[in-house]
């Protein structure tokens, strides 16, 4: 959350600073633009200021006149009229002065028009050594306003401007922080909710603040996902239960078939062909039992209904036990079996469900023996980095291409080959976090490599 907050704060601060900068630049540009525009316009309207005109006014024996640098019209370009008042308020020089203004001015009138207007004419005044020069502009073209204030007020503004600006900046930063913190808090809640949803969990976020709408949508999505998950879980459980139920219910009738077939098989009073038929019934009954057990196990593994009873076990001990059990079962009595364990792999520790792993390897060995009577089976185990690699190979006919295709996840048209036993191998190895690779042996036969992750090795095992 702190990281998100920091990121947001940085973005807000940058955004605010950027905004202020852009606004300032824009305002300055506008101000400069406006000033330049009107200054230019003023320049066009009035060519010389009151000071310049006053400087050009000179006294001659014939009276006053503007010097000859320019013509009078040029000097007074932009002004309606001009006049010069002497100390007594009498007009001593004038230019296009309206008749109603051509009179002597009292002190009161002079004081008034120097600050406001003279008969609606905006005027510019300049004090010269000869008197007061007054230049009149067209009424309605100028705005004049007199401003007064206390000196203390300006001193106060001068002293307080820096602290006030700092306080404003501090307030803006604090506002940014509060806003960022609240935003980060709300967003962190939403982010956590998304993580929980992604992990398959349920969320119920508070629907307040500026993330209320997002939170509401997330809550709705979560509720919908939960409903779907419940439906899927119920369906999976029903399927697993159904298979487990069938598997359970079929056992007692199969026990009867087994028992009586066995009795007939061993009855010396029966002819040998009938005893052989009874033996065939028993063998096929066993096949049905294995198929049902496989079906039950694969369904439980698929829907995680098969608990793994994992415990640390040494690779050598486990593999020897599995291979020995297979040899003792008599399934592969027509085959030769070579077990080769790399001495370095002897004491590797696996965290495994020994019974289930035994089932996986027994399926592989049984496959080789059943499909390839008389073949040579090899079981080679060695360490490969952080895994134990066990290769089970035979010199038989190898996996049919259709079986390999199905194991690789390809869908075949027509009848699918029977791969339940190998599928169980795959499921058991995956449940242990390992990988299995089905392939062909050279020059012929099947070769399956099972790679199982190693557990942490105990420190004080060696005696």
């Amino acid at each position, binding site marked *: 959350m702190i990281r998100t907050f920091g990121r947001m704060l940085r973005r807000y601060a940058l955004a605010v600073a950027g905004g202020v900068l852009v606004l300032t630049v824009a305002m300055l540009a506008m101000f400069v633009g406006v000033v330049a525009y009107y200054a230019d316009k003023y320049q066009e309207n009035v060519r010389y200021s009151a000071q310049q005109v006053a400087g050009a006014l000179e006294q001659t024996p014939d009276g006053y006149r503007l010097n000859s640098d320019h013509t009078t019209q040029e000097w007074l370009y932009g002004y309606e009229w001009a006049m010069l008042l002497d100390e007594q308020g009498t007009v001593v020089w004038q230019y296009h002065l309206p008749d109603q203004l051509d009179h002597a001015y009292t002190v009161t009138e002079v004081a008034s028009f120097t600050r406001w207007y003279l008969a609606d004419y905006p005027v510019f005044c300049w004090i010269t050594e000869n008197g007061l020069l007054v230049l009149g502009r067209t009424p309605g073209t100028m705005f004049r306003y007199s401003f007064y204030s206390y000196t203390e007020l300006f001193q106060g503004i001068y002293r307080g401007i820096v602290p006030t600006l700092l306080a404003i900046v501090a307030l803006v930063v604090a506002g940014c922080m509060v806003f960022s913190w609240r935003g980060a808090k709300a967003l962190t809640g939403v982010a956590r909710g998304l993580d929980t949803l992604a992990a398959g969990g349920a969320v119920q976020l508070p629907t307040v603040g500026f993330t209320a709408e997002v939170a509401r949508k997330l809550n709705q999505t979560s509720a919908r996902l939960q409903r779907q998950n419940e439906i899927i879980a119920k369906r999976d459980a029903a399927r697993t239960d159904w298979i487990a139920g069938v598997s359970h219910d079929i056992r007692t009738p199969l*026990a*009867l078939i087994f028992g009586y077939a066995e009795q007939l098989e061993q009855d010396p009073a029966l002819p040998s062909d009938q005893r052989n038929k009874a033996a065939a019934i028993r063998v096929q009954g066993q096949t049905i039992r294995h198929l049902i057990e496989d079906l039950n196990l694969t369904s439980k593994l698929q829907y995680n209904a098969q608990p793994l009873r994992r415990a640390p076990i040494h690779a050598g001990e486990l593999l020897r036990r599995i291979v020995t059990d297979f040899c003792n079962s008599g399934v592969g009595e027509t085959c030769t079996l070579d077990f080769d364990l790399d001495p370095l792999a002897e004491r590797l520790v696996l965290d495994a469900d020994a019974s289930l792993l035994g089932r996986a390897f027994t399926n592989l060995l049984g496959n080789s023996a059943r499909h390839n009577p008389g073949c040579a089976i090899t079981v080679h185990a060695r360490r490969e980095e952080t895994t134990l690699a066990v290769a089970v190979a035979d010199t038989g006919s190898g996996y049919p291409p259709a079986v390999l295709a199905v194991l690789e996840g390809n869908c075949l048209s027509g009848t699918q080959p029977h791969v339940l036993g190998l599928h169980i191998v795959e499921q058991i190895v995956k449940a242990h976090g390992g990988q299995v690779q089905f392939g062909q042996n050279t020059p012929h036969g099947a070769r399956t490599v099972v790679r199982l992750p190693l557990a942490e090795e105990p420190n004080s095992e060696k005696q």
Partner: protein
Amino acid sequence: MGRIQDVEILLVDDNPELLDLLCQTLHGAGYTCLHTAQTCAQARAVFAQSRPGLMVLDINLPDGDGFSLFRELNGAGEIPALFLSARDADADRLFGLGLGADDYLTKPFLTQELLLRIQLILRRVWGRSGQESPAAILHLAACRVELADASVHRVDGTQLTLTGTERTILQKLADNRGHIVTYDAVCQAVWGQGYYGYENSLNVHIRHLREKIEADPSHPRSLLTARGLGYKLLTEECP
């Protein structure tokens, strides 16, 4: 009681056809005193009248379950029991054995296997007071071994004695005669858990054992090596 076949056996299963099959199989094997029950109530009634020497119990029964029945009937004494059930989950098997049952066999089963397991339980529990177990005498290719006093009687008439370790090794192999026993299982029988490092000692003991029980220790005919796996003991009665 002279023979283990004279032990009274109580068979409890809710399926009458299966009870018939069990009775036929056990009768065929010479067992004479069989009681059957299809419910817990019937089992209690049989139990009230006679005290069976072995119980074969199903788990799913109409008026209760085999686990509770076993706890109830076995409360008084140590009666051996074998669960025969269609429930094949590890949890059920472990629970049944944890209650103190001697064995747990899942349906469908081979009747020969059931007979062997029943025989093993009865021999272990009742056979001690009866005749000496035939397993105590091993008939090997070059000698006869009496495990009780660890004596080896060779065909040339000489008599040797096994050391304690050699006797334990031979006993373990004899218990699984005809089958391979892993190095691990043999070492564990002799030295218990944490046997690692004793493999070389085991080789030495096996060599000494062969010198005593084989005619030609370099070409053993009774105590065979399964390369990379363990050892196998072949007795004269092995197929």
